[in-house]
Structure formats: C-alpha cells, structure tokens
C-alpha cells in the first residue's frame, strides 16, 4: 500500500492534512477541483459549468474510460449509488457503444499493440545487420 501525504504531518493529530502543495498527483487535484466542489448558483461572472471543457474531459475521463473498458470494468456506470454520475457520463458512454464483447476487443487491441512492438523490433534487428 502506498500512502501519499506530507511527511512529518500526522494526519490523525492534525485532523486535516491533504497532499503537499507540489507533491500531490495532478489527477487527484483536478478531479476534485474541476469535477467536485461546490457549485454556487447566482450572480456569477464565470462558472466552470458554462465553459466547455472538452480537452480536459478528454484527458480526465474519456481516456480512462477506454482503459477501463479494455480491462472489463464498468460497474460504477450501473451502481445505483452512482446514478447521478452514471447519468452524467451517458453522453460519453454512448459514443463508445455498449461494451458487449469487450474482452475480445481488449484482446484484439493487445495483439495489435504487440504486433506493432514486434514490427518495430524486426526493423531494429534488420537495421542492425
């Protein structure tokens, strides 16, 4: 198990710690400050929800969902605990189909990747002669 935190800070004594200013994983911070945190309605000049965050969402979510589908996990999508989240991801999910036969897809991708690696290796070996 890995415990990330601030060396020298006893979480239980301080009560609240949180990652260090620079050592904390950017993904951990981004998914909290961008995707969570209170949204206050009202007379707000700028509200993150108004801004299309296509690239950021691509980085944060879509890439990870592809990875997740490859390894066959999608349980958070159907967990009733997480319905609100599941609804929010609907648009993203529908782009990628239903995931039936995803293990086969994963295999094909893996074999494709491997083929690519092997081709590269052959090239290396040939050019080495």
């Amino acid at each position: 198990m890995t415990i990330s935190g601030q060396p020298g800070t006893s979480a239980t004594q301080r009560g609240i710690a949180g990652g260090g200013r620079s050592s904390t994983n950017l993904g951990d911070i981004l998914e909290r400050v961008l995707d969570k945190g209170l949204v206050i309605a009202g007379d707000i000049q700028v509200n993150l929800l108004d801004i299309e965050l296509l690239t950021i969402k691509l980085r944060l979510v879509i890439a990870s969902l592809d990875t997740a589908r490859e390894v066959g996990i999608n349980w958070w999508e159907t967990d009733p605990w997480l319905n609100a989240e599941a609804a929010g991801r609907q648009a993203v999910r529908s782009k990628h189909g239903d995931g039936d036969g995803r293990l086969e897809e994963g295999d094909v991708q893996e074999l494709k990747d491997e083929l690519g690696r092997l081709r590269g290796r052959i090239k290396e070996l040939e050019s080495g002669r």
Partner: protein
Amino acid sequence: MSAGTGVWAYAITESDHVTGAGGGSDLSWLTGVGGAQVRAVTCSGLTVLASDVNLDEYGEAALRENLENLDWLDEVARLHHYVVDATARLFPVLPVRLATVYGGDAAVCASLADHREQLLDALRRVGGRVEWGVKAYAAADKAEAAPDQGEAEPAARESSGLAYLRRRRDQLAAGREARTAAVSGAQAVHAGLADKATAAVVRPPQSAQLSKVRLPMLLNAAYLLDASDGANFTAAVAAEATAHPELRIELTGPWPPYSFAGEDDDGR
C-alpha cells in the same frame, strides 16, 4: 485594455470562524491564484474566502483558453487547492469548484443570501469532516508482461511463430482470469471501506497520463470521515491491502471534503 477585476472563490465557512468574537483566524499570510491575497467576504453569517483576479486572465473568455493549457491549469488548480486545504486546516469549510468568479463583493453577498440555508446544511453535513482517496490498481502480473521485454525475448525469437502465438494466447487467457479476480477484489475493497465511511463516491478511473501509473486502475473512490477517524480508516485500508494481494492500493488524504460539498454536483 483591462477587462476589470473579479472575485475568485475558494471556500465557504461560517463567518464566526473568520470574524468571531475570539478574533477569528488571521488569513493575511495566505495568497491564492495570481499571487493575490486571500480575503474574507462576509454576509448573512457566512464567509467566502476569496481573492481578486484580473479578468484578462481569469475572465470567462480567458478561462476558455487557459483551462485547455495543462501547465496553466496545473498551477492554478494547485493554488486553488492550496487555499482550500490551508483554510480547511483552520476551520470547517465547503470547497468551491475551480473557476467560480463573481463580478464583485455585492454578487458574492447576493449569492450567500440566496443559498444561506442550503450552505449551512452542507456545512453541517461535511464541515470538519475529511475525505480520503483510495485507488486500487491490478497488481503487475507476469503473465501479462509483453514478451519483448526481459527474459522471454530470446525464447520467443528461437521458437516458431505458431508456438509463440499459442503461448501468447494462453498468457492472455491467464491475464484475463487475473483481471476478473482483481476487479471483484476492488469491488470488495470498496464495499468494506464504504461501510466505515459517512459517505462514499466512486469516480471513473483516472487516465494513466494523470495517475502516472501504468497499471489498470480498477477503483477510484473517495470516502467521507470524521477527522478523528483517520487512524482507523488508514488501518482499514492497510487491512484491505493485505487481504487483496491481487491489487495495488493507494491511499491519499486527508483532503478537504471536495467530493461531498455539493448535494448533486455532477453531470450538469
């Protein structure tokens, strides 16, 4: 040409903590995005910790561009988190989502007045509690190691292509079984930990680019706990890690209660 000034919000607390009879907390040392000093905007018994920002950089048009720049986002997200985290150490807060910018103090006050009860409820629910992050990865599996790495390589070169493909197929099948076991292990870990928490949230796994871990992430969850439960929860996570050697478990926190600050804060 200057677009003017906005008020960037970091966190909300009850005003007693900042301006209380006992003197409240001194925040004069704290700076936020753009290096501006953090100040308290107090109305209706609530205080927004905020700082002034130049709308040339933090206005809506600028944010559209800047938020797509991962380096800019990295810096601003860390500065925002720094202020939320620092204030959460001093008193109970509701973390505010990144890039919440008001036109001025009057707009902050109007917003506080409109949502006073809802904000006080949320403060009672999560204020003073902390969030722990738990991620579980499928532990590295030898069967899945690519054959062009390490010692498998010479053997692969020597044998025929067909034998190689057969062996590879078997390896992939073994890898699939290991993954299935790891996925159900991650579910069991989540069920066990959620049981000990006041509330739990599961997020989609992070992309490897952000997590900096190449193993498949099977669980990415946050748990809300009383600040005093830290040791118990850490021990519970350690016990799960021991019980599930098929997983690599990573614990982060405690965090300010970002993931529990809004009642329905996703998907809109």
